[in-house]
């Protein structure tokens, strides 16, 4: 929104020069659409990174483990540093200092907390440290994030908790563990929504996207790809829902969803790949459960979507997934031929067209480019493998090409009629 306001303010001078509006009208517009206080993001980011690097320097200093410094002196220094950093941030906030100074001080404090954990373990030769130091450090950052309602602290918490998960997985990869995901979902996501922070929502969602499959993988390796597919559909659906309810900070997760959904859909257009992705060789109970979830999520995405074209594309995907659910239940037993993957081809083509049309109406070249890429990839893949008969293949391409031209003309006429009706 701020970007739009900046554009508007930039246009006002030209409009005045061209005589479209007078100075009084220009002032009224500026008042109605203010620029708002400058976030000074550059200073905040540099201060935050600088504080973290100072903290890392402190960690390295104590990692040197200078023998001449008594243990209690080392501990006293770190304790004093921790109090000074957080205390300094608290004092700066009370004095009304800039947000960047306050955040930098508290980030330094969080980094020193981590340094303190490592230093105590080093001073007393503790190994292993229990509970896991990365977990404790991450929880400390999360607690500080909530205490300050701070986005930078939340970023630090996400990074530390992801690092903890990856580190912990080395020793416990055989057990199902969703605690890291729960910590992020219940600890960080609410803060991101409260602060309406797009970057934090996106980062946390991306982290969850990776951690959830990792957490359940020991139990359901064979349907891992299907689980990831479900997650991607869920993100698309949630983004649609967020847009409906006026939560623009959540909408960017749609891009993450499509980033995974489209390539997987593309994979499902290949007859050889669908068996792998859909987990048909896995234990029936597990595969059926996950397939049912996939169907449910696609249905949910269809329900929340407001655009007919998107509903159609998702609907075709849902029908295909439901078909595979029927395969698991042995309701359908035959699964040979292109008719199995045809729905996925149609769904992918539909999404490609949708992106082009949507991009065209919004004047969004990235969307148009994605749509073109999808259709190009689909056409390239099918040019060599759809139908054994070259005659049938030729017919399919002719029909598809004509359909695309027809859709373009139909939409163009529909837009002209809509503009005329508006006028």
């Amino acid at each position, binding site marked *: 929104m701020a970007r739009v306001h900046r554009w508007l303010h930039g246009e006002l001078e030209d409009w005045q020069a061209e005589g479209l509006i007078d100075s009084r009208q220009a002032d009224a517009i500026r008042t109605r659409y203010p620029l708002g206080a400058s976030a000074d993001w550059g200073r905040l980011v540099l201060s935050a990174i600088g504080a973290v690097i100072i903290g890392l320097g402190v960690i390295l200093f104590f990692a*040197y*483990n200078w023998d001449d410094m008594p243990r209690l002196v080392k501990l006293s220094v770190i304790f004093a540093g921790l109090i000074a950093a957080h205390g300094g941030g*608290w004092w700066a906030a009370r004095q009304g200092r800039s947000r960047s100074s306050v955040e930098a001080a508290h980030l330094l404090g969080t980094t020193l907390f981590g340094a*303190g954990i490592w230093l105590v373990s*080093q001073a007393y*030769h503790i190994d292993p440290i229990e509970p896991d130091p990365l977990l404790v450090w991450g929880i400390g950052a999360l607690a500080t994030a909530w*205490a*300050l309602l701070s986005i930078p602290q939340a970023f630090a918490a996400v990074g530390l908790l992801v690092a903890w998960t990856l580190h912990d997985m080395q020793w416990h990869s055989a057990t199902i563990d969703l605690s890291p995901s729960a910590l992020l979902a219940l600890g960080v996501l609410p803060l991101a929504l409260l602060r309406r922070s797009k970057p934090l929502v996106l980062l946390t969602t991306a982290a969850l996207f990776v951690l959830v499959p990792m957490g359940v993988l020991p139990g359901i390796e064979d349907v891992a790809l299907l689980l990831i597919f479900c997650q991607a559909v869920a993100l698309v659906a949630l983004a649609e829902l967020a847009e409906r309810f006026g939560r623009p900070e959540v909408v960017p997760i749609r891009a993450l969803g499509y980033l995974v959904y489209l390539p997987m859909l593309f994979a499902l257009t290949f007859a050889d790949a669908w068996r792998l992705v859909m987990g048909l060789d896995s234990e029936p109970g597990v595969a059926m459960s996950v397939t049912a979830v996939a169907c449910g999520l696609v249905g949910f995405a269809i329900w929340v979507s407001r655009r007919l074209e998107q509903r159609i594309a998702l609907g075709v995907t849902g029908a295909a997934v439901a078909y595979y659910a029927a395969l698991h239940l042995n309701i359908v037993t035959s699964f040979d031929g292109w008719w199995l993957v045809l729905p996925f081809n149609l769904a992918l083509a539909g999404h490609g067209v949708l992106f082009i049309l949507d991009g065209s109406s919004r004047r969004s070249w990235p969307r148009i480019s994605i749509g073109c890429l999808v259709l190009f990839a689909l056409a390239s893949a099918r040019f060599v493998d759809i139908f054994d008969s070259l005659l049938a293949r030729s017919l399919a391409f002719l029909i598809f090409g004509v359909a695309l031209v027809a859709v373009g003309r139909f939409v163009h006429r529909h837009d002209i009629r809509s503009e005329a009706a508006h006028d």
Partner: protein
Amino acid sequence: MIKHAVLFVLALELLFLGSLGLDQEILMRTGESVVLRTTPVDPRDIFRGDYVILRYDVNAVGAAGLRDGLAGEPAADGERVYAVLEPIPGSDDLRRLAYVTDVRPDEGTFLAGRVGRPPGWVPRPVGGLAAHYGIEKLFVEQGRGWEIEERRGRRDGMQIPMEVELAVAADGDASIRDFRWSPMGVTLEVVRADERPPTDDGDGDGDEAARAPTVCVTLHNVGDVPRWVIDPGGASGSHCSFHLASADWGGDAMRTATSECRGITMDADALHRLAPGESYSVTLDLDAARWDVVDDDGVVDLATRLAGNGAAIRMVYRPDPAWLAGLDPSLGEAIWTTELYTPSFGLAGRID
């Protein structure tokens, strides 16, 4: 409200760090002092960054060293275990592993640990277990780690055990207080080894047995004062202070069938004075009858015993405390009476 909240978080962080450190500080000040000797280095010890990996006899325990629920049943990773310690004869403060149990002892000195590989690489003995006790990492100033590695030695050179002082709590938790170096080092050299496995030469006489290696064990005085080592039977080649031991820790030393050392008395030739920097070497032909071992099947030569189960062994210098009775009391602590282990080696003479 936000301003108070961040102070509350700060207080919690200080409390966590304080409790982490306080626990250890109390243990350091009030825990029972126990000294454990590190085991011989194998090539898989890794010095990483700013800490030295320590290995003790309690870390890799053979089947003979397991008791109660651990005997005969494989232990699960993460299971709680207790390493019971016993004094090493001839030493005031050194301890060694007596056995490992899953039942917490009611008395005595023991270390509480968990089943699982300690830092670095430790082979799990066949039928035994690997465990860690939180005392396997010694954090040192940058650069000192290499000094310690060098002094501790390598498999084909002189090895000097570190003697690590621990603070041990009543519940078995332990923390490293300090360390010192053993005043005696040891070197193992394989003089001759038969690398051929036992084969059937087709002449109907059965398998052609392999030979046990001939090794040279050297004891070095790396301290500042003269020391004496005891080795009766040196002139006859019996070298009664040297014994065979399984490469796996725990359990008793391997029994030999020889009677050469039974009832042997100390004479002038049995005592060897080593000035600082001096060494005492013995060459041991392990294929000789002197080293035939006694096991459940009776008396077998060492080569047959090692070939049968592919086991590795160690040599250990361990004089009989009874020999001290006839010695000059003024020598006192200058006589080296505590045990000293070599690295392990196999039938083919490969040192681990």
